[in-house]
Structures are given as structure tokens and as C-alpha cells.
């Protein structure tokens, strides 16, 4: 009995070490990426200035990916986050140009984002539309609204005070980095330590069981979309402040990137579920990749080609060992 138990323990330790390596494959991929770029151009890549630069570049993506994580924890995804960021950025600019105070303008933009989220939530949670169709459709409409709000032009000439949100610095670091950190920490905390956070997990894990255990599944799912909408709106506001201008499409490209970041991060958790730590690693991979390829001076088209290959490599790394199993 004694020996058997010990062997069992040993086996367990062995498998969990292997498991950790496998599930940590994406993290290792990330570290490798940093190491390779660091080796190729140590004097540039591994400097404080460049680190700051990478963080600055990914801050807005990190905000959107964090709230996308919430939606993906409940088992859906939201294609409208990019368009919502664009619309909210346009709304805040238009309100400021119209003479509203900064607080009012920002609040207005966040409300618009939350409303878009509420529409997504209503369609998905209550009308049971597939999240893909629902959020793709709102994406289209919201993007149309952004064009209407901007009249297709670039809005600019915003008050200086507003710009400090996106352009100011604190402790030598750009403010958007702190905003991103704050949002990520908040999402992490809420997902982990609040009842709504735990219910988001439960609904994503098995909505049927959650419902039959007395969880208000629809309400819980609805709320996740509202959070995503409001978060995307905040990202849009920061972006507008940073660029000191707004267009109808400025946030659009974040949609696919945000989902990609969450998916990359999902390979980190053993259960393969969305988690904020993984998402940030995912954001990091995307950011380091574009920064690093730029720094080693790969031409744009080849860069794009390599980006796909490297992402696959980073993720496949975590799977190759698994291949035989399932």
C-alpha cells in the first residue's frame, strides 16, 4: 500500500509537472519570443525605453482584451468591441467639440458603450441569438453610427485637459498604461472574488447546471456584455485622447486582436478557459511580436507573414506534446 501510494504521488507529480509545461507552453513561447528578440538586438530591445514603448502600444488593446475576457468567460464572444470603441471615441470627441465638460463627455461615451453592450446582452441572453450574429450585426450598425457621428471625417481640436488622459505621464509612464493595469486588475478581482464573477464562470462552464442550481443565467450573461461594452467605450475614449482626434474606424482593428489575445491566453489555463492572466500574456505576445519584428527590421509584408507563423508556433508549442493523447 505504502509503495503504491508513493508511486501514485510520483506519477501525479510527474504528470502535473508535464501538465504545467504543456499548459505553460504559451508562456514559454512568450519568453522565447522575448529572448530571441533580445538576443538579436539586446541594445535596443531590452531597454527600459523599449519596454515602455511596448506597453504604451498595447495599453488600449489590453483594455479591450480584458473586457472581452469577461464575455469569453461566460462562453460567448463580442465582435462589436472594436466598433464600440470607435463610436465612443467619436461620441466623446463630438461632445467635447460641442462644448460639454470633460467629465460629461466621457460619461456620455461610456453610457453609449454600455448601451451597445446592453443591446448585445439582450439579443444574446434573452433572445438567445447566437452571439456571433448578434454582435456582428451590432458591429455593423455601431460602425454605421460612428460614421454618422463623425460624418466620415476626422474630429479634432479637443480641449487640452482631455488630452492628458491619453498623452499625460505619471512616474515617467504614459497614463494609458495605468488605465490598462487598473482595468485588468479590476477584471481579475471581479472574476475571482465577487459573486457575479463566480457566476460568470459557472455560466460559461455549464449554463444548464448553473441555471438548474438557481443562477439567473440570462441576467448574468447580459451583464457580461454590458461590461464589455462599457470597457470598449473606455478604450475608445483613451484612444481619442491619445490621438487628439477621432474617426469612425479608429478602434475597429482591435476587435480581432482582442479575441486573438484571449484565445492565446486560454491555452494557459488547464481547463482551456478564458482567464485574465492568459489574456495579458496574449496581449504581450502580440505586442512584442510587432515591436520586435520592427526592431530587427523585417519588411512590412514579411512581418505580417511571420506574425502568423510565430503565433502558431507559440501556441503549437503548448500542444505538440499533447498530440498523441486525445
Amino acid at each position, binding site marked *: 500500500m505504502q509503495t*503504491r501510494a508513493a508511486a501514485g504521488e510520483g506519477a501525479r507529480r510527474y504528470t502535473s509537472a508535464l501538465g504545467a509545461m504543456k499548459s505553460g507552453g504559451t508562456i514559454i513561447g512568450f519568453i522565447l519570443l522575448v529572448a530571441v528578440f533580445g538576443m538579436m538586438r539586446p541594445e535596443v530591445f531590452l531597454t527600459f525605453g523599449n519596454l515602455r514603448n511596448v506597453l504604451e502600444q498595447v495599453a488600449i488593446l489590453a483594455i479591450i482584451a480584458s473586457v472581452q475576457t469577461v464575455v469569453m468567460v461566460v462562453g460567448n464572444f463580442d465582435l462589436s468591441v472594436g466598433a464600440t470603441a470607435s463610436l465612443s471615441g467619436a461620441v466623446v470627441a463630438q461632445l467635447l467639440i460641442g462644448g460639454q465638460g470633460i467629465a460629461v463627455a466621457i460619461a456620455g461615451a461610456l453610457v453609449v458603450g454600455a448601451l451597445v453592450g446592453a443591446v448585445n446582452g439582450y439579443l444574446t441572453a434573452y433572445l438567445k441569438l447566437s452571439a456571433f450574429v448578434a454582435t456582428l450585426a451590432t458591429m455593423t450598425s455601431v460602425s454605421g453610427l460612428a460614421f454618422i457621428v463623425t460624418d466620415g471625417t476626422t474630429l479634432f481640436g479637443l480641449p487640452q485637459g482631455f488630452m492628458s488622459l491619453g498623452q499625460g505621464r505619471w512616474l515617467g509612464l504614459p497614463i494609458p498604461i495605468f488605465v490598462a493595469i487598473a482595468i485588468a486588475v479590476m477584471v481579475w478581482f471581479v472574476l475571482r*472574488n*465577487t*459573486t457575479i*464573477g*463566480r*457566476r460568470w*464562470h*459557472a455560466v*460559461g*462552464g*455549464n449554463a*444548464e*447546471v*448553473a*441555471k*438548474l*442550481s*438557481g*443562477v*439567473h443565467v440570462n441576467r448574468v450573461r447580459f451583464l457580461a456584455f454590458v461590461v464589455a461594452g462599457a470597457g470598449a467605450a473606455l478604450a475608445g475614449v483613451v484612444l481619442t485622447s491619445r490621438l487628439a482626434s477621432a474617426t469612425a474606424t479608429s478602434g475597429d482593428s482591435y476587435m480581432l486582436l482582442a479575441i486573438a489575445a484571449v484565445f492565446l491566453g486560454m491555452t494557459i489555463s*488547464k*481547463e482551456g*478557459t478564458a482567464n485574465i492572466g492568459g489574456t495579458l500574456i496574449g496581449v504581450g505576445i502580440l505586442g512584442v511580436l510587432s515591436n520586435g519584428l520592427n526592431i530587427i527590421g523585417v519588411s512590412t509584408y514579411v512581418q505580417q507573414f511571420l506574425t502568423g507563423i510565430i503565433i502558431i508556433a507559440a501556441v503549437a508549442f503548448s500542444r505538440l506534446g499533447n498530440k*498523441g493523447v486525445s
Partner: protein
Amino acid sequence: MSTASQYVLEARDISKHFDGVFALNEVDLQIRTGEIHALLGENGAGKSTLIKVLTGVYAPDSGTMHLEGEGITFKGVSSAHKAGVVALYQELSIVPNVSVAENIVLGDDMPTRAGLVDWKELRRIAREQLDRLNQGQIPVQRMAGRLTPVQQTMVAVARAIAVKAKVLILDEPTAALTDHEIQDLFRVLRNLRAEGVAIVYVSHRLEEVFELCDRATIMRNGRVMTTTDVADTTIREVISTMVGRNQEDLFPTRGIPGASTAVEIHNLSGQRVKDVSLSVKEGEVLGIGGLAGSGRSELLRIIAGAQRHTSGRIVIDGQETNHKSVAAALSHGVALVPEERRSQGVVLSQSIGENIAVGNLTSISKWGLVTRARIKSLASNSIAELQIKSRGPHQTVGQLSGGNQQKVVLAKYLARNPKVLLLDEPTRGIDVGTKSEIYGLIRGLAAKGAAVIVVSSELPELIGLADRIVLMHEGHISGEVSAAGADEEQLLSYCYGRAAS
């Protein structure tokens, strides 16, 4: 008490239909405080549907409900919870990606402090509930998805008993449990009864019902046939009320195994299987018993090509087959009826015809083409042969009752006329009548020359059905007996890894 009603929960004239077919037809049910009330009936009789109506999952088409004499309608599970009516639903398990503790307290009653989850209190509640079930060894912080299936079921039970219920409803809680856990569960249920909780209990294991329950309501075809004191009736009587005729012998007569060996296994090892050797003759039924986690399912999966083995040989019809996939095993005539029907046996969203066809594509296709007509005729044959209660080959499997889903799984594999048929818990959740039919089918197949291996956690089933029984313990074969006249205690001691004393 303002009301004279002696019943804590009373349902009257409940009807519910799906797509025009009545699942419940003017059903009456009265539950007293402090009783354990069995709800019995064949597969598809309407038990689970009734439970879902009682707890607000389904709105009935008509009928009324009274709780402690007050008329009441539930608008969903949480409103039933609030009123004190709680159920453990059939085959519903856990949320895999949250902790055991959260699984036990998931709904509105999750404890909070300053708006945040009160983890300490949550874990305390969870531990308390698990201790009641003698499951204190389950770590409450672990992800529930990492527990064994038995533990998962016990967590689900703990969730049901954690709610301070006036009426606690359990739909086949013991289908996936072994005797050990069943006795722990019964103890808890008896204690609750003593505290005045009313319990509704669904099971196809009638011995259990006679051991535990006070009264029984028997359903057939969506109607209540009778409600009676358990003490006033017999198993035989209950069965004939359930199926509407007298039940002959549960088990068919044994046949005579052929001379040639159909399948041989030599020193097979793999995940949770250690050095197993056995052989089965044509026409023979071999039973495999053992405790949960003893490696029986893994052994069958390895033989069926669903799982790799690390060493050992598999010989079919005298030929070593080094098969590495289920498809290859099937081509050698080896078929496995898997254990978990919902995740391994059937595609719930597809029709009966599609489900049966996918296991038989080669035989119903020509040049890679299959027609709907051939799928339909294959399925119609199976429906007739196995008496699958359905509206025809086009009906979605998810709409069938649990037992009839199991028949669809069987049909899929039986249609291949396998030489070696492996069955993993084939009668889990199946009513007595159907069990008897399935035993007949298994014997019929053996009579035609197939070798059959049956894994079951019900020892009487092994004794009644098999020709020979081997017992497994921690991946090894710990004993072998001839089934005729085998003694349960002897089998059990092998299950615990002890040589028979």
C-alpha cells in the same frame, strides 16, 4: 396551520406535452411532510418531466400546485428554491471550471461579505455538506471537473441537500453510484426525513425503493396509475403496474458457449490497467465487476481501440490485431457500447436515424453514397427490434427519455453484428422491463456466436446475466468465478482486492 392539508406539496391535474405528444396527462401527486416518496415508472413514463414541472423548469400546460396548502406557480428554478422546493435533476452534473465549494452553493444563497464572496464561509458550508455525505475527503477547493464521476455525483447531491428544503426531489441519484455511496446517501435522506423534510425519490433500482421509501407513486405513459404504501406492496406488483403486464424472469436462460475463443487478451497494460489477461469464447458472456475506478472502463476502451495500451497483446479470432483506433477495432468486429451515453453514446441534437447511421456508414453506403431512405430503414428496424419509444427515426435523440437514449446507443452498435461486443454499464438508468429486454438482446447476440463482455456495478446483474465473472481491483484482475450460483459477498471481497476467505 391554517390549512387542513396533510400534504406539503400537492400537484393536481398536471398536463404537459411536447410537440403535441403528452409527457404528462392529468397527473396528481401528493407528498407528505417527513416521508420519502418514490416516483416509479418505465423509461419515458414522465418522471423527469414531472419533476421539472414541480420545480418551475417547465411551465405545465394545465394543472395546479399547492405548497403547504397555498396555491403556487414557480417562474424558474430560483423561485422554487426560494419556496423550498429543490431538485437534483437526472444526469445533471457539475460546473467543471469552478471549485467544488462553489458547485455546492452556486445560486442566490452564495455567502458574501462586503459584497465579495465569503470564501471561508463558502468552504465551511461545502465541507459541512460533504461531511454529511461521508465525502469529507473531497477537497472543496479543487476544480469540480477534476473529480471522479462518482465524486461529481456526490457533489451534485451535496448541492441539493445544502439548500434548506421543505421538499427535496432526487431524480435517479444512485444511477452512477456504488453501494458505498448509496448507503451514505440513504443515511442522510433518513435523517432529513426525521427532520420533517419531504423527499421525492426516483430510481429504477426497486430493491432500493423498498429499502428506503415509505410510499410510492407509479406512473405509466404520462399518467399516474396508483399511489400506495410501500409496505403494502411487492416488487412484483410494482413491476406489473409499471409495465402493465406481469414480468417474467428478469434474466434469460444461459446458453452454451462455443468451442473457439473469440477474443484473447495477454498481459495488457495501459492507463489504470495493469497486466490483465483474459479470454472469451464465442457465445460466452463474461461479466466484469469491481469498484468505481478499478479500471474496468479503461480495459474495455483499450480493447475497443479508444485508448492506447503500453504493453500486451489483443488477439481476435486467433489473429493478433494491433489496432490503434476505434475504427480499426470495429473493422475487426469489436464494438464498445460506452459508459456515458450523453457525452459518448449519442449526439443529442441529431435524430435517431443519424445517430444509428454514423456507426454503420460502410454497410449502408455504396461508393461513398448514402441515401436518407437507407438511413431511415436501418433506424426503423432498430426502433422495432429494440422497442425504442419514439415518434420515428426522425425524432431528435435529446427529446427521448434517458432509457430510450440508451437503446439508441445499443442499436447503433448492435446493427453492426459485432463478433465481440463490449458493454460498459449498459443498463444504467434503465427500467426493469427494458433491462430484461436488453439482457435478452445480449443473450440473443451470444446465441448467434458473439463474445460479450459486460461491465456492471450491479453484482446481481452480473450474476444473473453472465456465464463467468472476473473482478478487478486497482487495474488488476483480482478474482474469477463462474456466474451460476456465485455469491455476492465473495464477489465483493474480490472487488476490495482480498482473496475470498
